[in-house]
């Protein structure tokens, strides 16, 4: 079961790029890497998902090195509204395979003016 490690907290200012790294040393061959964002009193919200190399969507980029033992979520030009907890999720979730999803404790990102 892949265990993830993220920084507990990060601080940034509006307009800066923020990179949050997640370590998952024992990631398995079939595991994907997914990032979620969570605001207080809300459920997590999907940001981005990838398997290898680089993935980009309208809100973020995900960088995964060749050994896949870590991944980096990149948020371009953050704003105050990006203040939230960010979770890295690693797992191969297949029917009958039991729980192979691991949410870590997340990274609290605080964006200031």
């Amino acid at each position: 079961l892949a265990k993830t490690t993220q920084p507990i907290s990060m601080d940034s200012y509006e307009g800066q790029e923020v990179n949050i790294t997640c370590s998952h040393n024992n990631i398995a061959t079939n595991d994907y890497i997914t990032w979620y964002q969570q605001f207080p009193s809300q459920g997590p919200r999907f940001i981005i998902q990838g398997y290898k190399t680089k993935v980009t969507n309208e809100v973020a980029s995900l960088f995964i090195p060749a050994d896949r033992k870590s991944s980096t979520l990149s948020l371009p030009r953050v704003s105050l509204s990006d203040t939230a907890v960010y979770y890295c999720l690693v797992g191969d979730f297949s029917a009958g395979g039991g729980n192979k999803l691991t949410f870590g404790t997340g990274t609290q990102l605080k964006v200031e003016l």
Partner: protein
Amino acid sequence: NAGVTQTPKFRILKIGQSMTLQCTQDMNHNYMYWYRQDPGMGLKLIYYSVGAGITDKGEVPNGYNVSRSTTEDFPLRLELAAPSQTSVYFCASSVGTASNQPQHFGDGTRLSIL
């Protein structure tokens, strides 16, 4: 589309009482999940379902039961509430396996056991 709807939003129970947390989704997703989140912690999977009539245990299933009689509904049952079950409970769904499909979460049920 309402997405994933959870009821109630808040509830206080006495030790030993029972209750059912309701979860319904209108996206025709096959996969549904129940998580709990303790203060300052990540989410832990309680139970999941890959389709109507099929459920399986997650990481922390003790003290809970689930059923999946329809695609839309996935209720979570607490039979004998204990203080250790005080938590925020999230229901989620995905069109396919969470391995490569995003999960859609409800806004949670905040449960206190006193």
